């Protein structure tokens, strides 16, 4: 985060969403952005999708803070920028967890941030896909009522414990809305690129934003407490191999958690590969050896493997849990593990693009408490 503690206040007639759309329109019109990636209502009206918009006429259905997250925005940016160079400048309006996942993907060479401007918005959370699609039209109202009061009750379980709902990293501009006086939004530059954009738009970031900051920090404190409580509760449910097996016992091995995860970027997952297909004899032997073999096989191995691969970069967006047909609390489990792992490395995924992935750096003197010295190992061998 930069030390800029100032922002530009922009009138938002009617609603915060309208204010953001007006800002985007102006930037498109003045050619500051060539194109905008913005959540929008689909023409059928029953869901939302990211629209990549060049012509401002298509901003009609724009909805910068939709009630649901059907696709993680980082995956969208990746699909657009992963192959080849571009020349169209794209401004992406995203939720903070989407921005942080985008930064992680940039570190993993799955996103090219050149020509991409990331704009985040204070996020009240999203409601679970199942609640939205089963609610037959009630979801919009449910979200609107809850988000206006920052009531996290109907939101995804991981949204309720999210302490990075505001300017949490990776963005060029953050849009502050939490408790801003009605009819305005705060545009806060968070990089030199962001500052330049606001300058080009003639918006001077001179306004004192300490009131907004205080409100954000207060909510962060509350959420941290709730996060700790939830992590403790999840830990009590899954600690030890028996409970862990139980937690994933209804898994149908569809791997949908992996497919919707922004961080799981492998083209082909190891667990879908031929390496995980075995001969009949092997399955029979396993069945004989342990009093029956549960089918599908290797489900827990998959979850542990996935956890090992992505938990350092997990941004707790909750896509996995939303996409799980068996309602396994995947995101809450991964949040617990992610928090622990990230803490060990003092790493916050998506905080800045310059911060290297922990596994790409090596410090000779780290984790000595879990190492055995050469002397100790050889002494044991001699005995």
């Amino acid at each position, binding site marked *: 985060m930069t030390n800029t503690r100032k922002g530009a206040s922009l009138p938002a007639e009617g609603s915060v969403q309208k204010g953001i759309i007006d800002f985007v329109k102006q930037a498109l019109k003045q050619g500051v952005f060539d194109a905008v*990636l913005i959540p929008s209502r*689909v*023409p*059928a009206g*029953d*869901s939302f*999708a990211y*629209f*990549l918009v*060049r*012509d401002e*006429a*298509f901003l009609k259905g724009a909805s910068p803070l939709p009630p649901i997250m*059907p*696709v993680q925005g980082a995956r*969208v940016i990746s*699909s*657009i920028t*992963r*192959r*080849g*160079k*571009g*020349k*169209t400048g794209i401004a992406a309006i995203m939720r903070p967890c989407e921005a942080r996942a985008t930064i992680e993907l940039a570190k993993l060479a799955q996103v090219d941030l050149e020509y991409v401007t990331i704009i985040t918005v204070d996020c009240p959370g999203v409601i679970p*896909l*199942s609640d939205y*699609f089963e609610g037959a039209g009630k979801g919009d109202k449910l979200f609107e009522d809850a988000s206006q009061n920052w009531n996290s009750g109907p939101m995804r379980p991981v949204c309720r414990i999210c302490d990075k709902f505001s300017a949490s990293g990776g963005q060029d501009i953050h849009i502050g809305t939490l408790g801003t006086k009605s009819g305005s939004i705060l545009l806060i530059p968070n990089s030199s690129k962001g500052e330049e954009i606001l300058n080009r738009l003639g918006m001077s970031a001179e306004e004192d934003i300490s009131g907004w900051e205080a409100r954000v920090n207060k909510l962060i404190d509350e959420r941290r407490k709730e996060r700790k409580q939830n992590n403790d509760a999840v830990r009590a449910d899954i600690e030890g191999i028996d409970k862990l097996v*139980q937690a994933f*016992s*209804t898994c*149908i*091995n*569809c*791997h*949908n958690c992996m*497919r*919707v995860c922004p961080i799981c970027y492998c*083209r*082909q997952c190891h667990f*879908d590969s*031929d390496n995980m*297909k075995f*001969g*009949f*004899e092997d399955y*029979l032997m396993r*069945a*004989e050896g342990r*009093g*029956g*073999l*549960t*089918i*599908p*096989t290797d489900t827990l191995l998959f979850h542990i493997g996935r956890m090992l691969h992505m938990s350092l970069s997990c941004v707790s967006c909750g896509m996995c849990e939303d*996409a799980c*047909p*068996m*309602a396994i609390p995947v995101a809450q489990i991964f949040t617990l593990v992610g928090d622990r792992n990230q803490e060990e490395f003092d790493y916050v995924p998506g905080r800045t693009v310059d911060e290297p992935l922990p596994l790409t750096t090596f410090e000779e003197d780290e984790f000595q408490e879990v190492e055995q010295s050469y002397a100790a190992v050889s002494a044991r061998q001699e005995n």
Partner: protein
Amino acid sequence: MTKVLNIGKSAEDGLKELLKFLLENGKVKGVVTLRKTGEDGAISYSLITNPDDIESTAPLFPLMLVNLAKQLSRLTLIEAATEPIAVVLRPCELRAFVELVKRTQGSLDNILFISSTCGGVYPLEMAVKGNIEEHLPEYWKAVEQGELAPNTRLACQACEYFVPYTADVAVSLLGNEGIDKETMLFLNTEKGEGIVEGIKGKFAEGELATVAIEQIRSKRKAEKEKLSDQAELQNLGIDEIAKTFSRCIGCRNCSAVCPACYCHVCFFQTETSQHERAYYERELEKKGCMTMLSDTIFYHLVRLFHVSISCTACGQCADVCPANIPLWAISLKMGDAVQRTFDYLPGKDIEEGLPLTTFVPEEFAGIV
């Protein structure tokens, strides 16, 4: 007429007795069936080798967590079963497995197939809520009367292929009022007849496809029309397709759980299917706006194109869709149309070639 074995116990207990008999007498080395696993009553398929473990099975529990065809393919893909096993599965799963074997994704060798006249399964969401047990009395009452239990999968309510064509052993359930005290096992094949030799029970002759079964089929057909109308897919023109799939989140879980989608790497997962950044810029220039992720409707159309000839309408795709898209109705409609065109019922006969592997010079003269 078929040879019928009557075990004087309820259908589920009789079936368990058969499975235990097969294991105890070394007639099979393993059994694949549903089993209660977790403390919370979780159910999953299991490969069992110890006869004592049969007690914990629930072969007729009305839930399809995974389509077993896909799992049997996994078990027999690298090598056919090296020892004889018995598998209890639903008619649509059996048909789907036969289709997979036609595509060299598994082997029928050494497998004894046990199926039933199927009353359908409950949706996965009911398993999530954990209240299937409460519905069981209602379910079995409906099955006895040859009715559709309320709240079963819509795909099951519209299913007219509930008789297991190629099973070695078929348990009579639908419209059989005696299932709480007797197990009627129709021994459809020589293998089925031979393997029960030595079991305690009464033998007789009978017919699985009775008049009652035909009546049930007519009812299901009517239900299918009704449900199909409710899904509002009469025309399936470009507008309906766009409308139906516009809430697709691009997760491709429909493909992941589909027994007919057997490709080890889906085209839409490949590097070939990914666009260059320049593509997006060109499209954007042309249209002014693009929906992201791109190609979701394209994906569904291609999938329908690939699977509809072998789709057994099991309904797994619809059950796992996070966006509640009525995929079961779409697959059913497409499958029906394509299969009728080729006069082909997937999985009915292992000897019948896949329509696209055969060429009849004079076919479709009307559209050539």
